[in-house]
Structures are given as structure tokens and as C-alpha cells.
């Protein structure tokens, strides 16, 4: 059975149950206590992931390899940053209840299941566990009509996507004869086996997964949900689940369907180009910073998918590095957004940032670093993420895709740099409230990582190279 491969998940699930019980039994257990326990559980899980034995376990339903270790550590890092961010901002955003960090914990278990899925059923249950927790989190501020609307919208559209995914899985199962990734890969290595029915199933599976990473044409929910959900939840949704979704897409495309690359490549190229274009153009006219970040995340997923479309080991390594830089700069950006508070209320308009450079120069400086990094300006981490991706696309001979990507990132740079202009050159507005230490910590971690990534990229690149080796190369 070899359950040891899933030790980190088991420990995390048990600690989730434990935290819930502690909340019932201990009177003085409050939101802060639950958050700290959750962070501790994440750290223990990360240590277990770092030393986990690699192999297949639980009757072939679960696999750990270099790829899963890399991605799970990234997901756990994103989750820890998200819980840290919610620590001192939960009251203003009406999410200060004991179950809040616990839901994040269960969502994280779902993500780790997605990353380690070795058959289509594990994949589906991981996706479902993660999504269900996120639906609840999005609606967590239940007295806030916007949050309720966001939760409901996310739930309805997410269920539709789950339906597409399940339908695809059933077709693949019917025409491919198995749900196990290894068996499917073996069956499909004979090119004649790939029937039309299987390809249709594959397209449905891709649609379901693409919804979960909010790439075009399944992105419609993203701006509304990002705007409506409480900001700590938005911060969480835009980091860890994106990593898990991309990881799942990579594993499903490369492991069971690796031999059908010629078939799915065009779909991924189309999704990637459309996402980049929408992310670049639709964000220009936004006034709300959370909506802007929604379009920005759509764009980033588009860039990351270029690496998958390239289909080479170098391309996949690019995706991993891209997600690594994305998690830290995105968490940092949301740390800055959560610090936008006046008299105990969050403000979300971009114009509210005016004069931040004068009122809080450190925060403005960090925000500027993140924006430059998102725009892909060297020497910040975001540039290196894009560099590895575009280099891989060129190596695979996908010149058009690389050139389009560079052009669209120039368009994207416009709205990122506009924020810097507002902060540094617009007439100053009232100062924000004093930012809590936990937010400063998150912003600091993000800023240090984003700024100094170029000094020591070698260990990260080496880790990513090692991780990609696990995916059929």
C-alpha cells in the first residue's frame, strides 16, 4: 500500500481535524490561535514534503516525485503567506472566524492531492476538495452582498467546470480503457489508439482544468470573484491554487497524454495567446485594484502556458520558475493591497494609492518593485520567469508565440507602471492606517525574493530542472 508517500497530506488532514476539535474544546481558542496552528501545520507538512520518499503509493492513486515535491513546497509557501496576510486583516474584511484558516488548510490538502494525482479520480477529488473550500472562502464574509454573490457565482460556474471535467474523464476512461496515468500513457504510446472519442474527452478535461487556472476562454468568473471575495481570500486564490492548477495541467498533459502532444498543443497555444491578450488589454480600463489583479493573473497564466505549449523539458522548467516567481511577487502585491486601509476600512481603487510614496515610502517602494517585476522589467524576478519561458519557446521554434508574448507584455507593462505613476507622481491623498507587522513581513519576504532572485537563481533553476525530470523526460 505504501501510505508513507502521502504522509504530509495525512498529517495535514489530521491536524485540520485536530484544530477543529481544539476550537470546540478550548474556550479561549480564537481566530488568531487557529491561524497560528494552521501555519504550524503547514510548516510541519512542508518539512515532511521536503523529505518525502518518492514513488507510487496507495494502490497507484498517488505519486510523489521531484515535480510534486517542488510544486507542493511552492503551494505550502503560498498558503503560509496567505494565512499570514489574513492574520491582522481578517476583522476589517469580516472573515475573522475560527474556521477561516481551517478552510484554507483543507483547500491546501486538495491542492496537494491534485499535484500528486496519479489517476483521474484522485485528480477529480483533489480539484473538488480545493474548489469546494474556495467557494466557501469566497462567500465567507456572509453579511457582505458582494462576497455572497462572488461565492455563488464561483460555485455555479465551478460546478459547471467540474461537470465538464467529469464528462471528459468518463470519455477518456471509456475510450482509453483506464484512469491510471501510467496505464493510459502506456496505452496511448501506440498512436493508433487515440480515437476521436478520446480526443474529445481530452479537450473536455483540458477545459475543466483551464477553468480552474482561469485562462481564457474560461476566465469569466475571475474578475467578479476576485473583486467580490474578501481580500485575504483573493490573495489566497491567486497564489496557491494557481500553482496547483498549473501543476495538474502539466502532469496531465505530460504523463498520460504526453504522446498526444501534437493534438493538445494547438489547444494550449490558443488558450495561452488569448489569455495573454485578454490579460493585457482588459486590465487597462480597470479602476479597482482587485479586478486589475484578476486580469493580471489571467495574463500570467497565459505566459506560464507558453512553456507547456513548447512541450520541452526547458519549457516546463520555465513554467516552474515562472510559478515560483509569481507566487512571491503576487503574495507581496496582495500584502500591499491589504495595507490600503483608511480608518479601519479597506479601499480598493487605484486612485486611492495616490501619494503613497510620500505617506509610506517603504510600502510604495515595495509596491513599485512588485509592479516592475510583474511587468517583466529586469533585474526583478518576474523578468527571469518570462525570460526562461520565452527562451524555451524560441528553442522549440515557436517564434510567433514568443514574439506575441513579448509584445503583449509590453502592453501589460502600461497598467503596471501606471500604478507606480499614481503612487509617485499624483497629488497626495490621506495616508493609510498603520500597517500591521504581519503584512510588513509578507511584503518584505516578497520584496526580498523578487529583488534578489537574480543574485542566486542557480539553486532554484537546478531544483526546477530536477523536478521536470520526473515528468517523462
Amino acid at each position, binding site marked *: 500500500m505504501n501510505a508513507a508517500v502521502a504522509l504530509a497530506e495525512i498529517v495535514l488532514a489530521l491536524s485540520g481535524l485536530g484544530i477543529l476539535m481544539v476550537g470546540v474544546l478550548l474556550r479561549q481558542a480564537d481566530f488568531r490561535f487557529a491561524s497560528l496552528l494552521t501555519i504550524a501545520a503547514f510548516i510541519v507538512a512542508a518539512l515532511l514534503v521536503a523529505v518525502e520518499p518518492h514513488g507510487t503509493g496507495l494502490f497507484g492513486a498517488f505519486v510523489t516525485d521531484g515535480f510534486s515535491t517542488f510544486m507542493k513546497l511552492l503551494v505550502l509557501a503560498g498558503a503560509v503567506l496567505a494565512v499570514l496576510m489574513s492574520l491582522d486583516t481578517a476583522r476589517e474584511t469580516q472573515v475573522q472566524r475560527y474556521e477561516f484558516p*481551517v478552510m484554507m488548510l483543507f483547500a491546501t490538502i486538495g491542492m496537494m492531492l491534485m499535484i500528486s494525482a496519479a489517476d483521474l479520480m484522485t485528480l477529480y477529488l483533489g480539484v473538488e*476538495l480545493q474548489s469546494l473550500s474556495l467557494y466557501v472562502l469566497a462567500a465567507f464574509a456572509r453579511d457582505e452582498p458582494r462576497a455572497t454573490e462572488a461565492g455563488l457565482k464561483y460555485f455555479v460556474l465551478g460546478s459547471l467546470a467540474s461537470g465538464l471535467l467529469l464528462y471528459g474523464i468518463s470519455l477518456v476512461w471509456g475510450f482509453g480503457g483506464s484512469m491510471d496515468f501510467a496505464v493510459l500513457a502506456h496505452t496511448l504510446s501506440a498512436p493508433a489508439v487515440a480515437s476521436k472519442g478520446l480526443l474529445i474527452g481530452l479537450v473536455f478535461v483540458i477545459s475543466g482544468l483551464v477553468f480552474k487556472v482561469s485562462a481564457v476562454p474560461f476566465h469569466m468568473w475571475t474578475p467578479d470573484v476576485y473583486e467580490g471575495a474578501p481580500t485575504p481570500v483573493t490573495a489566497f486564490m491567486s497564489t496557491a491554487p494557481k500553482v496547483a492548477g498549473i501543476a495538474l495541467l502539466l502532469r496531465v498533459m505530460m504523463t498520460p497524454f504526453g504522446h498526444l502532444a501534437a493534438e493538445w498543443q494547438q489547444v494550449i497555444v490558443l488558450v495561452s495567446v488569448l489569455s495573454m491578450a485578454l490579460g493585457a488589454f482588459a486590465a487597462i480600463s480597470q479602476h479597482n485594484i482587485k479586478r486589475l489583479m484578476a486580469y493580471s493573473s489571467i495574463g500570467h497564466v497565459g505566459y506560464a502556458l507558453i512553456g507547456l505549449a513548447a512541450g520541452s523539458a526547458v519549457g516546463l522548467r520555465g513554467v516552474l520558475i515562472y510559478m515560483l516567481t509569481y507566487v512571491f511577487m503576487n503574495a507581496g502585491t496582495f500584502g500591499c493591497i491589504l495595507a490600503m486601509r483608511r480608518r479601519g476600512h479597506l479601499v480598493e481603487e487605484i486612485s486611492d494609492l495616490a501619494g503613497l510614496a510620500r505617506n509610506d515610502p517603504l510600502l510604495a517602494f515595495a509596491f513599485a518593485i512588485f509592479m516592475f517585476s510583474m511587468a517583466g522589467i529586469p533585474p526583478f524576478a518576474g523578468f527571469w520567469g518570462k525570460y526562461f519561458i520565452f527562451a524555451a519557446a524560441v528553442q522549440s521554434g515557436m517564434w510567433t508565440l514568443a514574439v506575441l508574448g513579448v509584445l503583449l507584455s509590453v502592453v501589460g507593462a502600461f497598467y503596471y507602471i501606471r500604478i507606480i505613476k499614481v503612487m509617485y507622481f499624483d497629488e497626495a491623498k490621506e495616508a493609510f492606517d498603520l500597517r500591521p507587522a504581519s503584512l510588513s513581513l509578507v511584503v518584505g519576504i516578497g520584496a526580498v525574493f523578487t529583488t534578489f532572485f537574480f543574485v542566486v537563481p542557480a539553486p532554484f533553476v537546478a531544483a526546477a530542472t530536477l523536478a521536470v525530470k520526473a515528468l517523462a523526460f
Partner: protein
Amino acid sequence: MIAALLFWLFAAVLVGSAVMVVTARNPMHGVLFLILAFFNAAALFVLAGAEFLAMVLVIVYVGAVAVLFLFVVMMLDIGAARRKGGWQAYLPAGLAVGAVLFAEVLFSLAGWKLMPAAVAVPQPAGLSNTAALAGVLYTRYLLLFQASGLVLLVAMIGAIVLTLREHTRSRHQSIPRQLARDHRETVVLLDVPLREAPVVPGEAKKQAAPAPGGAE
């Protein structure tokens, strides 16, 4: 022989109660007939040797789904808006859906008969099908089984978190607080000189803020 008799009995009651579900004038009767239909379907499963499915049908559909229906019917007070005829309007759509369902059942039956590959999974010797199911559920599909459990747990926590409101103004009893009281808190002995109004300590405070905790 007896099995065949029982089959016809259960099947007849099943069909009869299913008809009553859609024709009953009182929606409450409709739901009760639905429960009867579930029980008869469960009995048919038992006759077919699928006792696990029968249990699940009773536990899930009678125990949870039908009770939920009852709640909805009671809460919405549909009795007031009883159907006054007009079923002919729904007849074509109903017949169409019924025909499609019937055709599907027919196809699957035909597939069963015509395709040699589609044979029933052999029953493991000496095992009831509950034990056989548990055998794979707790070994081969352990991860999926536990993960589904987590999904359901999340659904439950979510439902509670999003809807439960603690009513701070309700006057429910707090048993521990009641039991923790002793006479020293409540009984005050005063030396009252004759013909003078007693001055009770804490009287004014009590009037300003009535004691919380309700039934005292």
C-alpha cells in the same frame, strides 16, 4: 415461487405509490408515497441480492432526502397552492421525458443481452456484497474514499459557517450557570429594624441591568 410472488407484490406497490406521488393532491401525501416507493425499491434490491444498495437507498433517500423534502413542503406551505387540475398542460413534456428514460433503460437492457462482454461481476464466494464492497473500498480505493470524506467534511463546515448565527439575544438556559449558583449569591440576610424599609444591597444595579442567563 415465494420470491416471485414477493417481487410482484413489491413491484406493484412501487409502481402504485410512484403513480400516487405525481397524482396526490396533497403534496404531503406525495412525499409520504415517495418514501413508500423508496422502501419498495429497497425491498426489490434485497430480492436481487444487493443488500448494500438497499441499505444505502433507505439510509440516504428515506433518511435524508425524503426528510429534506418533507421539511421543504412544510416550510413552504405548498398546501395552500394545491394543484387545481391543469395537469394536461404538463402531459406532453412529462410523456417525452418518460419516453426518453424508458428508451435509455431499454437500451441498457439490450446492451446487457446483446453484448457478451457486459457480464455481471462474479460474486466472490462466501462474501456478502457489503463485505466485498468494503474490501475494495478500504484497500484499493482508500485514498479516494478518505478524500471524499474530506470533501463532505468541508461541505458540512461550509454550510455551518455560512449560515449559523449565534443568537446572543435568545434567552436559552445555561445549565452550567444554573447549577453553579449557590445560596450565598442569591440569598441575602439583612438585619432590618422594625418599621423601616429594608435596603437591599445591589438592588439599584439589578434594576439597571437585568440578570443575563434567562431562566433564573
